[in-house]
């Protein structure tokens, strides 16, 4: 099996290297063939691993690949941990990646950077697989930064566009703020556990639960709280939680396939995966869990609001992604890790679907992304229409669709939790359901229904996209429906086994499991719950406002102008960061440079002492008269001074 694990990661890497270094030699079709072959290999082998691990029920694998280095007795290794959590992530990552690879053939068909693009997405797949298969914090950080690198490269893929290269720099730097916390968290782990391996850290963690450390003199902090919050700051960057969410909407500057793969289905969920992986640590700090919960709730609700006022088709979905990441984070906060991962999985399918469908619309509309200039596309793009409908219903949690199972369980779990902040979280996630339905179907109706708002020229060229685009849509639509029925084993069964640890006091999922009586009963129960009615209300409101009485939307915007402005301004985060952080950093740099380096050090000290030397030598020059008796005289004075020093001042005098 070890060779299989190695092949899973190395196959996409080989594809990436071939397409990247020899892109000119192998040509366009060569590039997509090698990378698709690589990722397809990984997918097939992931299915093999799934059978081996889950169906045959073998023990998890945990072993090193090679020793990166040994320093101060700490073994830093590259190694794999393949358990059921990893297996699930492998399936999701390789499947979505494969679909996106195929889709890209159509989407990027006339782009001059074709080979480069395939090289990047294959490299991304490699990095993401290294991240999820890691058995230690070093490799986790490697994968973590590597996916960030590829994300940077892909957001700026069209490097001539000023907006794209602004967005990718922003994404990298905001992520680095998260990584700053993450790295400190890893440093704290090394300090207290003397190892980087998950197994060693998890085993020693319970004994550390009562330990404290001092950050400010005189204040004791629980070590586990500090570690968990630092690690979670990393997750906040990667999984775009408020206030480090600002990079994700701008990341839409990248080509649509990567919005689906990286900025919806996989990379942005790395933070969720990481926290679930670290469940044995987070369970030891209720403070950290509450922190996670509150951040997640804020993201889930307030980012959803912003989806209501966006007009760019991809940005609507981007804000929806932020909001859904908030839901996953909320699940982690109430210790429902398995539910969070379950929502991660269902979301990966339906959100990748929605993005790729949006991409299909964008191709058909000749790179028009403004939903105000669409409308009535239903009859031109039937496959895109139906798959989008499936995706949207899954997203709003309509009973029977995948998102229903995962989202409803999150809401139930929050309801059952008693941890600090769960009351606020419950209100947030419940209100979020209405908002989600409203913005999703606002977009859906504006794009596919209502009257056509584009010109004759566009209409003449409007037709369904080619099969390389529509087949991945259909392939993703299937799990967007059926993946939900997997809730029985994954959430309420013991699918995860030892991979996820939940302490008895926080076990809300166990509590829910007692009331779980099969999926059909679950659906029936869902029909009576508030979430279903809120989703229906949101859908109905969207239908009424955007298809029946479009004037209402304008009136609302007029009536609540202040709120509308604030939402258009994205609560002012971007402006604040631009002025305070970016401007502040530049200002600090200028001040330190001009005041510190140029004026003080160079002006005063260096050139000042040069001038002083010049002045002194000017004075001393007068002493060098050339008269012997002057020199003799100064020698006598010098001798007298030396003698006085010996007599009165020297040690022992």
């Amino acid at each position, binding site marked *: 099996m070890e060779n299989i694990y190695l092949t899973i990661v190395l196959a996409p890497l080989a594809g990436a290297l071939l397409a990247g270094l020899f892109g000119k030699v192998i040509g366009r079709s060569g590039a997509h063939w090698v990378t698709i072959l690589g990722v397809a290999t990984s997918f097939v082998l992931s299915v093999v691993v799934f059978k081996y691990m889950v169906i045959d029920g073998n023990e998890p694998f945990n072993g090193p690949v*090679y*020793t*990166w*280095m*040994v*320093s*101060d*007795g*700490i073994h830093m290794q590259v190694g794999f941990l393949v358990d059921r959590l990893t297996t699930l992530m492998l399936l999701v990552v390789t499947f979505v990646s494969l679909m996106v690879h195929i889709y890209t053939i159509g989407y990027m068909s006339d782009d001059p950077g074709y080979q480069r693009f395939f090289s990047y997405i294959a490299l991304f797949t490699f990095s993401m697989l290294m991240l999820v298969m890691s058995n230690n914090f070093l490799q986790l*950080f*490697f994968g973590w*930064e*590597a996916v960030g*690198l590829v994300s*940077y*490269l892909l957001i*700026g893929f069209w*490097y*001539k566009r*000023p907006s794209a*290269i602004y967005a990718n*720099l922003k994404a*990298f*730097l905001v992520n*680095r*703020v998260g*990584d*700053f916390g993450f*790295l*400190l968290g*890893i*440093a*704290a782990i*090394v*300090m207290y556990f*003397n190892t980087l391996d998950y197994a060693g850290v998890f085993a020693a963690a319970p004994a550390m639960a009562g330990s404290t*450390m001092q*950050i400010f003199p005189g204040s004791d902090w629980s070590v586990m709280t500090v570690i968990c919050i630092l690690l979670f700051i990393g997750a906040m960057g990667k999984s775009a939680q408020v206030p480090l969410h600002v990079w994700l909407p701008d990341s839409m500057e990248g080509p649509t396939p990567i919005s689906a793969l990286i900025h919806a289905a996989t990379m942005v969920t790395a933070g969720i995966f990481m926290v679930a992986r670290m469940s044995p640590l987070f369970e030891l700090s209720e403070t950290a869990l509450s922190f996670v919960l509150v951040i997640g709730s804020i993201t889930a609700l307030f980012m959803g609001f912003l989806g209501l006022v966006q007009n760019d088709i991809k940005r609507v979905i981007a804000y929806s992604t932020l909001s859904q990441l908030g839901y996953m984070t909320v699940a982690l906060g109430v210790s429902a890790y398995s539910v969070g991962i379950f929502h991660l999985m269902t979301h990966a399918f339906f959100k990748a679907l929605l993005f790729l469908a949006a991409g299909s619309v964008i191709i058909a509309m000749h790179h028009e992304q403004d939903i105000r200039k669409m409308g009535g596309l239903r009859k031109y793009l039937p496959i895109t229409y139906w798959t989008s409908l499936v995706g949207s219903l899954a997203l709003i949690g309509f009973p029977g669709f995948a998102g229903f199972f995962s989202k409803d369980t999150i809401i139930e779990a929050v309801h059952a939790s008693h941890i600090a902040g769960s009351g606020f979280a419950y209100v947030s996630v419940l209100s979020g359901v209405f908002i989600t339905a409203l913005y999703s179907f606002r977009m859906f109706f504006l794009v596919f229904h209502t009257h056509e708002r584009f010109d004759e020229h566009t209409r003449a060229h409007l037709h369904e996209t080619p099969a390389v685009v529509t087949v991945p849509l259909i392939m993703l639509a299937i799990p967007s429906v059926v993946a939900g029925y997997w809730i029985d084993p994954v959430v309420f069964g013991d699918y995860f086994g030892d991979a996820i640890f939940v302490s008895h006091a926080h076990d809300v999922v166990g509590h829910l499991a007692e009331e779980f009586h099969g999926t059909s009963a679950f659906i029936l129960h869902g029909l009576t719950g508030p979430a279903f009615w809120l989703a229906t209300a949101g859908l109905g409101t969207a239908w009424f406002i955007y298809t029946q009485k479009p004037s209402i939307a304008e009136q609302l915007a007029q009536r609540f102008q202040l709120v509308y402005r604030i939402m258009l301004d994205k609560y002012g985060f971007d402006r604040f960061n631009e002025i305070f952080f970016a401007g502040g*950093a*530049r200002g*600090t*740099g*200028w001040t*330190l*440079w001009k005041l*510190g*380096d140029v004026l003080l*050090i*160079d002006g005063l*000290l*260096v050139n000042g002492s*040069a001038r002083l030397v010049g002045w002194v030598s000017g004075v001393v020059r007068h002493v060098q008269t050339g008269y012997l008796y002057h020199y003799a005289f100064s020698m006598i004075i010098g001798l007298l001074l030396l003698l006085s020093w010996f007599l009165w001042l020297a040690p022992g005098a």
Partner: protein
Amino acid sequence: MGEFPLLSLVIWMPIVGGLLVLATSQWPSLNPRPLALAVAVITFLTSLLLYTGFDVSTADMQFPEKASWVPAFNIYYQLGIDGISMPLIILTTFTSVLVILAGWEVIKERPAQYMAAFLIMEGLMNGVFAALDAMLFYVFWEGMLIPMFLIIGIWGGPRRVYATIKFFLYTFLGSVFMLVALIYMHTLSGSFAILDFHVLRLGLTEQVLIFLAFLLAFAVKVPMWPVHTWLPDAHVEAPTGGSVILAAIMLKIGGYGFLRFSLPITPDASHELDWLIIFMSLTAVVYIGFVALVQQDMKKLIAYSSIAHMGFATLGFFLVFTIMDNNAGSSHGSVMAMEGGMVQMVSHGFISAAMFLCVGVLYDRMHSREIADYGGVANTMPVFAAFMMLFAMANAGLPGTSGFVGEFMVILASFKASFWIAFLAATTLILGAAYTLWMVKRVMFGEVANDRVAALQDVNGREIVILGSLVFMVLLIGLWPAPLVEVMQVSIQNLVAHISVSKL
């Protein structure tokens, strides 16, 4: 191999070779470049024997040579290397090959003298790392500056005279005090052997004075804030090759000095004053990081980035005492800190060389270092853009590149010393990415900015060889640092054990 004077060979071969290259200038029809390259390559290959023949299990000085030099003062021609100096010698011989190649076409004015200066400098720098006699060390230390002055003064830019004088005064000021300290210790011990100084008993006041004298010499060389302002000027005026040697090797000599002199000779003073070094190092990381952000000149930006990165090296070297104080006397973690500092030095050698060479590639074509003159270079030089992107990421400390390894080790270790030291050190993650990638954005990305950028030719075969070999090193150390750490492990453990014991 034991009897064979390998170290003398890597010192004198380039010097003699350099003199031969110099002699070719008598015959203008002769092309000095192939000879210079041959000397550099043979020296590099010879220096690899130091690696293959190195015994990683001992902290003793290896490949020893000793001959009487000035018997009246007990001065010996004494050489030897341990795990700290060996990687630096190989770094020197490797980089020297690259600078010879880098000057191949660009230097049309007196190429023989140019190549000779680099070869002679290479031998002298190897001498600095291999010398075990303080006077011998001092001679090499001062000697290597002469070729550098010439390189900046003759082949440099318009303000080269100001830069050279500033460079000279700064470094000279520092080394005079070091000389006094060395002579003082000679009067106590009757010997100039550095290893004798290590075991020389010194009182605290003596130690503090000696420490400060060394600090002045080494801090200028590293350079540490606030004695760093000569570096940006020197870099801006130096030709590409000069910048590469300056950044890749000369700065390391300052760091090496701390490990070979300051720490083992004056451990108690180091303990007393470690807060000063830590403060200066963190200032380098944070303050210089901000200053680098607003530079308009690419070479200045990279020069400031060098100062910030070297801050990690000095920080790693001096964490040991704080770690012991805050962990009930246990020095666990300080080996990692010091190794991290060493790895950072080696890695910075490759990355800064690569960054300066990249700027050189652009400068050779456009004759400008101003960021504002560029824009959209990736359109016309795609292969170069890929190289530059990789080195920029290495400069920003991306895992998988060598730039990550040292910073990672030092940050991990500094957490043991104090949360706040780790906090300030880790800001490099943000600042380093900000100044490097912002520059890359303005230079490489965007629409083609002007006609001169539109006319750019992508890198040629020679440049691909130079940059490609640096890619290899940067990725090798990034993906598998174990061999590098292994050679220095025992020497550093020995050093930490030595300085944990008070001399008082």
